[in-house]
C-alpha cells in the first residue's frame, strides 16, 4: 500500500512539472531510478514505450508502475499520470478566455523548457553509463542511432535494431 501511494505521488509530481510526455523523462528518471526500479528497468521501459504505438508517457508510467507493484501498480501510475492534465483541462476549458491573457504562464514555460532540456541531457548520460554502454560498441551504436534519427529514420526502428544488435552481438 505504501508503494502504491509513493507511485501515485511520484507521477502526480512529474506530470505537474512537465509539459509533455517526452519532457517528463528526465524528471521521472530522477524520481524513480534507485528508489523504485533499477536503471536497467527504466531503459527497458523507455525503449518499449518508444516502440509500442500510443502515448509514450502513459506507457512509461504503466510499465514502471507494473514493475514496482504489479497490475495495481500499473493502474495507480496510469491514474496519477492522467489526473493532473484532466483536472487542468476541465478547468481551463471553462475559463479559457481568462487564461489566454495570463502572460506569466507562458513565461514560466519559456523558463522551464531550457532547464528540462539540460536535465534530459544529464539523464541521457546516466542511462548511457549505467546501462553498461560506455564501451566502444556502445558509443558506436549511440552515434549511429543519433545520425539515423537526425536523418529522420523512425525512432521505433532505430531502437528495435539497436536492441537486436544487443541480443545477438553483445554479451
Amino acid at each position: 500500500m505504501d508503494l502504491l501511494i509513493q507511485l501515485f505521488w511520484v507521477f502526480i509530481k512529474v506530470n505537474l512539472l512537465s509539459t509533455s510526455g517526452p519532457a517528463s523523462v528526465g524528471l521521472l528518471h530522477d524520481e524513480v531510478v534507485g528508489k523504485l526500479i533499477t536503471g536497467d528497468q527504466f531503459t527497458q521501459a523507455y525503449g518499449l514505450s518508444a516502440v509500442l504505438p500510443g502515448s509514450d508517457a502513459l506507457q512509461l508510467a504503466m510499465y514502471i508502475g507494473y514493475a514496482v507493484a504489479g497490475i495495481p501498480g500499473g493502474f495507480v501510475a496510469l491514474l496519477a499520470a492522467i489526473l493532473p492534465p484532466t483536472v487542468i483541462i476541465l478547468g481551463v476549458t471553462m475559463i479559457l478566455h481568462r487564461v489566454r491573457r495570463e502572460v506569466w504562464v507562458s513565461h514560466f514555460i519559456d523558463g522551464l523548457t531550457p532547464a528540462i532540456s539540460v536535465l534530459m541531457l544529464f539523464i541521457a548520460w546516466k542511462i548511457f553509463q549505467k546501462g553498461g554502454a560506455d564501451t566502444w560498441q556502445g558509443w558506436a551504436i549511440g552515434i549511429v542511432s543519433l545520425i539515423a534519427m537526425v536523418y529522420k529514420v523512425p525512432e521505433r526502428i532505430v531502437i528495435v535494431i539497436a536492441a537486436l544488435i544487443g541480443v545477438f552481438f553483445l554479451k
Partner: protein
Amino acid sequence: MNQPSKFSVWNKLLWMFLKVNILSPSGPASVGLLYKEAVGKIMTEARFVEAVGFSNVLPGSEALKLAMFVGFAAGGVPGVFAALMGAILPPTVLMFIVATILQSYQDETWLKSLVLGMSPAVTALIVMVAWELFRTSTRRKVDRRTLLIAALSASALLLKISSPLVLLGAGILGVILFGRRSYQ
C-alpha cells in the same frame, strides 16, 4: 435533417482516438494524423491550432490534453471522457501484455543484452528530444536569457540539487526574466 445524435458524436470520438493511438507511436507523432481526422469534420482549423497551443503550455502529457481539447470542442464534457478513453485504451492493453511477458524474463541473459544494445539508442533518442525541445523554446527569441537559464540549471544539477527544485526555479526565473521585457 440527418442531425447526428449526441451519442453518435461520442461514439465517433472514441473510435477516432482509438484509431489515432493505434496508428501512431507517440504523442507528438499523433498530431498530424489527428489533424486529418478531426479538422473539417468535428472542429475548425482555428480551434485545432488553439488546442495544440494549449496542450503544449499546460502541464501533463500533451497527447492526452490534445485529445481532451478535441473531445471538448466536439462533444462537451462527455466528449472529453470519450476522447480520453480512446487515447488510453490502446497503450494500456498493449503495455500490460508486454510488461507481463517481460517481467517473467527479467533474469534471462538475452534480456540483459537487449538492454545493453538499447541503452545507447535510448540515449540518442533522449538527446534528440532534448535538442528539439530546446530549439522550439528558442525559436522566437534566440537570446541570452534562455542560455542563462540552461547554464544555471546545468550548474544546479551538477551540484546535485534535486531536479523538481531546479525545474521550479527555472520556471520562476522565466517569469522574472521574460516578464520584464513584455512590460517595457
